[in-house]
């Protein structure tokens, strides 16, 4: 796979305010990159630079083989953008809105507009003015607008913000479908569950890049695999038996619950269970502790805050 987005020490200043600093990332073709960070972290600024809407203060970004600040008009042929609060012309119908935006590209506007209205499930409302559309319908229409020219790369800024659960699921399915159809998706979101389920990799920024990796790797780097065993009671014999196992890295007792660090819970849990039973333990439940992207996110953001506080 080849990179379709490459940034090198991308920096953006608004006057004295540093919005993005030395951001160097690479996104592969066909990948969904979850782009996360707290409010004011520089996510929207980065998205705008990468989509050729604003220029970086220093460093550079190459998107679809083009420097983003050189020929933005050409770049706009290759990228599509879904803004956080998409707007439409209220006196125009859904179809007319799509035809207008699609009219700036070398495409068959009508068939492309019809195609995406169909994909988004809005065909039966195409002749309706957008004033009567729900937030979910507007979001789908905005997604259709971002895709009408079949862009290689799609920038999605908070695609499910403010949507009800049903509409959110539909939008997520559409995003998955984008990947299946070969689009590269740059997904900016505050919804960590959404980012975890959709993204191939996660980039976490807070003005500068904190991490860029798969969710699995990030979890492994930050949290040790752990098995939680709940017993009727815990005694010294059981504790010694567990500690005596070579596979066990660490054990913590919390009343009648043991938190046991092991390398590979899936293959090593049966060995652990067998030893506890042999030591007379009466097991109630055994479970592997699952860390979510939220744990990763909060841990990294806390770590970054502490670093900043220390340096201040």
């Amino acid at each position: 796979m080849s990179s379709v987005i490459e940034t090198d020490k991308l920096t953006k200043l608004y006057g004295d305010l540093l919005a993005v600093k030395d951001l160097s990332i690479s996104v592969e073709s066909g990948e969904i990159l979850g782009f996360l960070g707290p409010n004011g972290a520089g996510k929207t600024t980065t998205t705008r630079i990468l989509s050729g809407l604003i220029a970086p203060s220093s460093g550079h970004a190459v998107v679809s083989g083009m420097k983003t600040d050189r020929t933005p008009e050409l770049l706009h042929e290759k990228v599509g953008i879904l803004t956080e609060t998409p707007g439409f012309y209220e006196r125009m119908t859904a179809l007319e809105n799509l035809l207008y935006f699609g009219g700036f590209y070398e495409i068959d506007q009508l068939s492309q507009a019809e195609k995406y209205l169909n994909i988004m499930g809005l065909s039966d409302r195409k002749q309706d003015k957008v004033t009567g559309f729900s937030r979910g319908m507007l979001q789908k229409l905005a997604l259709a607008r971002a895709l009408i020219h079949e862009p290689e790369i799609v920038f999605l800024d908070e695609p499910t913000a403010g949507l009800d659960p049903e509409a959110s699921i539909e939008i997520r399915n559409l995003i998955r479908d984008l990947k299946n159809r070969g689009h590269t998706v740059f997904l900016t979101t505050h919804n960590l569950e959404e980012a975890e389920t959709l993204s191939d990799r996660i980039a976490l920024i807070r003005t500068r890049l904190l991490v860029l990796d798969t969710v699995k790797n990030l979890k492994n780097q930050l949290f040790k695999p752990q098995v939680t065993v709940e017993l009727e009671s815990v005694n010294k014999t059981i504790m010694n038996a567990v500690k005596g196992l070579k596979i066990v890295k660490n054990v913590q007792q919390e009343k009648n619950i043991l938190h046991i660090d092991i390398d590979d819970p899936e293959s090593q849990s049966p060995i652990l269970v067998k030893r506890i039973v042999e030591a007379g333990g009466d097991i109630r439940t055994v479970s592997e502790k699952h860390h979510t992207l939220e744990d990763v996110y909060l841990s990294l953001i806390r770590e970054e805050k502490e670093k900043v506080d220390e340096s201040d």
Partner: protein
Amino acid sequence: MMNRTNQKKRHPIAHVIRKEWLITFRSLNNTLFITLVPVLITLQILLYIFLVLRFAGADLILDSIIGRAIEKWLVQFSVPQGLSALQRLQVFFFSQFPIYQLLIPCMIAMSFASFSIVEEKQTRTLEPLLATPVRTRQLLLGKALSGLIPSIIMSYICTVIFLVGVMVMGSRELLRWVLNPQWWLSLFVLVPLVSFLSFMLGVSGSSRAQDAKSAQNIAVVVILPILAIVALQILGFVVFSPAKLIILSVVLLILNWIMLKAAERLFKRETILIRWK
């Protein structure tokens, strides 16, 4: 995956114009404002000329302060002394129409051009629009021309109405003096040039404004010099001879070119996207 055909893409400027017309003429208020108000202004001018001449009296006007300026104008345009005082005044007042007509595009520009970019900001369509391959010049020209074309068409329709009024109030013979070179130059050169300038000023003001009200305020300020020219000419204090009009037209042409360049520079995509909330 890509559905590209031989379907001919409309020129981006024409595309912007078409959309602006679609939105504008779907509103009854806007349609009436563009079509009815210029006609009412024209009828008002005719009524004003009729009332002044009917009740103030031609001799009284020619004896007043503006009378001297009017005489100066009549001499410059070789209006024969043989005409009656009333006819001489009719020629003067009727001949001012093309200058008066500059008010029509100014008025439409203030109302529409000044909102053109602000409206895109308010409806949050500007960012997706700027994310398309449309160039700044194409967008600004499209916005300006979408108002300019109907206002010029209305100017010419009003001219026909006015000339009918001239024939009804005066006589067909008077047209010989009214339709002088100044009239034609004003109508076919000055009106389009001033209109374009008004619209570009309006669109530029709109791209710099933070809200609709300030956009309109900017437009009013920049259009004041144009209104001043109209007032000076109508009162007869400045006589725009054909030679002066040609010079004025060249100056306006240069101003239009400068304004187009300035409008592009003033339209700072980054500032518009970042500062607008």
